[in-house]
C-alpha cells in the first residue's frame, strides 16, 4: 500500500517503485512542494488525485528527474531520480502531448523507437495498445485532441518502461476508449510495471489500485479507494476527498 509517514518509510524500506523523502520544490519563487514524503508501490496503478494547481505535475516532474528541486531525496527504482540509467526504465507523458505535430504517428514512433533501440514490431504493438491503428499514416497535427495525446502515450510505451508517469492521460478521451486505456494500464501493471497516473477528476480515482490525494502541495491521504472510503465513512471518493481535505 501507499505510505507517507516517516516511520513507515523506514520500516518498509526497499522495493518501492518511488520513494520520496522531505521534497521541497520552488517554482517561479513560489514553494510548490513544501516538504513531502511518499512511497509508491511497484506493480500497481497509483492515482495522483487533486485539484489543478495542487502540485501534481511538479511532483511528477521531480520523479522523472526533469525538475530542479531545492532539497529532499527522490529515489526511483532504487536510483536517484534523473540518473542516466533511468532514462531507459522510466517513461513520462506530459499533459500537453509532446510529439512532432508535422510528422505522422508512424514517423514519430519510428524516430523515438530508434532512439530507444526498440524493435520495429514494437511500433505496431504500441499503436494497437493506444487504439490508433487507423491513424498511423496521419500527420499528428490533424488528429483530434484525444488521439494526439494517445500518440504521445504510444511513444512512452515503446521502450517497455518499468515505471510510467502519466500526467492526465485520459483528458479528452471518450468513455469507451478511456475504459480501454485503463485496461491497458492494468495489463502493464500485471506485467510488472508501476504506473503513476494523475487526474483532477475524482471519477477516475475508483479505477486506481492505490491513491495519493494532494491539495496545496501537500499529501492529504494515501491508501486504496476502499480504505479511504472506510476511513472517512463515505460512499463516494469525492466525499472522501472533501472529508480528508477538511481534516488535514
Amino acid at each position, binding site marked *: 500500500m501507499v505510505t507517507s509517514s516517516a516511520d513507515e518509510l523506514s520500516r518498509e524500506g526497499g522495493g518501492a517503485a518511488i520513494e520520496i523523502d522531505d521534497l521541497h520544490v520552488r*517554482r*517561479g519563487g513560489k514553494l510548490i512542494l513544501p516538504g513531502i514524503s511518499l512511497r509508491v508501490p511497484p506493480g500497481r496503478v497509483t492515482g495522483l488525485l487533486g485539484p489543478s494547481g495542487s502540485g501534481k505535475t511538479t511532483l511528477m516532474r521531480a520523479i*522523472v*528527474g*526533469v*525538475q*530542479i528541486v531545492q532539497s529532499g531525496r527522490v529515489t526511483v527504482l532504487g536510483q536517484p531520480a*534523473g540518473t*542516466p540509467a533511468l*532514462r*531507459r526504465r*522510466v517513461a*513520462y507523458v*506530459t499533459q*500537453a*502531448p*509532446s*510529439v*512532432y*505535430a*508535422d*510528422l505522422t504517428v508512424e*514517423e514519430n514512433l519510428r*524516430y*523515438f523507437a*530508434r*532512439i*530507444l*533501440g526498440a524493435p520495429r514490431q514494437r511500433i505496431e504493438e504500441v499503436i494497437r495498445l493506444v487504439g490508433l491503428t487507423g491513424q498511423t499514416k496521419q*500527420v499528428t497535427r490533424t488528429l483530434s485532441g484525444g488521439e494526439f495525446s494517445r500518440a504521445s502515450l504510444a*511513444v512512452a510505451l515503446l521502450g517497455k518502461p518499468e515505471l510510467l508517469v502519466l500526467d492526465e492521460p485520459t483528458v479528452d478521451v471518450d468513455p469507451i476508449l478511456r475504459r480501454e486505456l485503463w485496461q491497458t494500464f492494468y495489463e502493464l501493471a500485471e506485467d510488472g510495471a508501476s504506473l503513476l497516473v494523475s487526474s483532477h477528476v475524482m471519477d477516475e480515482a475508483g479505477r486506481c489500485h492505490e491513491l495519493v490525494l494532494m491539495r496545496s502541495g501537500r499529501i492529504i491521504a494515501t491508501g486504496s479507494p476502499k480504505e479511504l472510503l472506510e476511513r472517512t465513512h463515505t460512499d463516494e471518493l469525492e466525499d472522501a476527498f472533501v472529508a480528508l481535505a477538511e481534516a488535514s
Partner: protein
Amino acid sequence: MSITATLATAARVLGQLRRDPRTLAMVFLVAPALLTLFKYIFNNQPHTFDRIGAPMIGLFPLIMMFLITSIAMLRERTTGTLERLMSLPLAKLDLLVGYALAFALLAALQGGITGAVGFGLLNVQARGPSWAVVLLAIMNALLGMTLGLFLSAFARTEFQAVQFLPAVLFPQVLLGGLLVPRAHMPHALEIVSDALPVTYAYDALAKVTADNTGIWLWLDIVIVAGTITLALLLGATTLRRRTA
C-alpha cells in the same frame, strides 16, 4: 554518442522539412532570386557585382540556417519535444549533430542551386574554383546553424527569435566587408569587425573569388570552424535535462 540516434535525428528533421514544401521552395528559390536582383541593381557597377556576387552565394545559407535553426529549436522547446528527448537515452550531441547533418544537406542543395544560377546564368565571377564557394556555403550554413541554436535559448517566443537576425547577424554582414571593403571603413569599425565570425566567413569567400588561396584562406577557415565548434558546445549547454 550514438550514430543510430544521430542519423535518426537527421532523418526526422528532413522528414519534417519534406512536410513543409512551401518552406523548401523558398529556401531554394529566394536566394537565386535575390542574387538575380543584385545583378540588375548593380547593372551600371559591374565591378561591384563581380566582387560580391560569389560571396553572396556563400552567405545566403548562413542567414537562412540561422533563421531556420532558431525557429526549429524554439519549437522543440515550446512543444515539449525537447523535454521528452532530454528524458530519453539521447546524447545532446546526437540531437545537435543530427540537426547539423540535415541542415548541411539543405545548405549543399541551396548552395548548389544558387551557384548553378549564379555561375551559369548570371555570369558571377570567381577566379578561384566555384565548387570551393559551394563548400564554403555549407560551412557558413553550419556557422549560421550553431549561432542560431545558441541564441534561440535566449528567445521565449518566435517573434523574439526572428529579431536576432537583424540584431545579431545583419551588423556582422554589414561590418564583414560585403557592402564596403573593411579597409575603407573607419578604423574603430574595422577593429570591431575583427572580433566577429561573419567577417572571416566573408573573407574566405572573397579570397576564393580573387583566387587568393594561400595560408590566409586556411586561417579564415580555421577561425570559422573554431567558432562553429564553440557555438555548438555553448548551444549544448543550453539544452537542460533539468529545468526550474
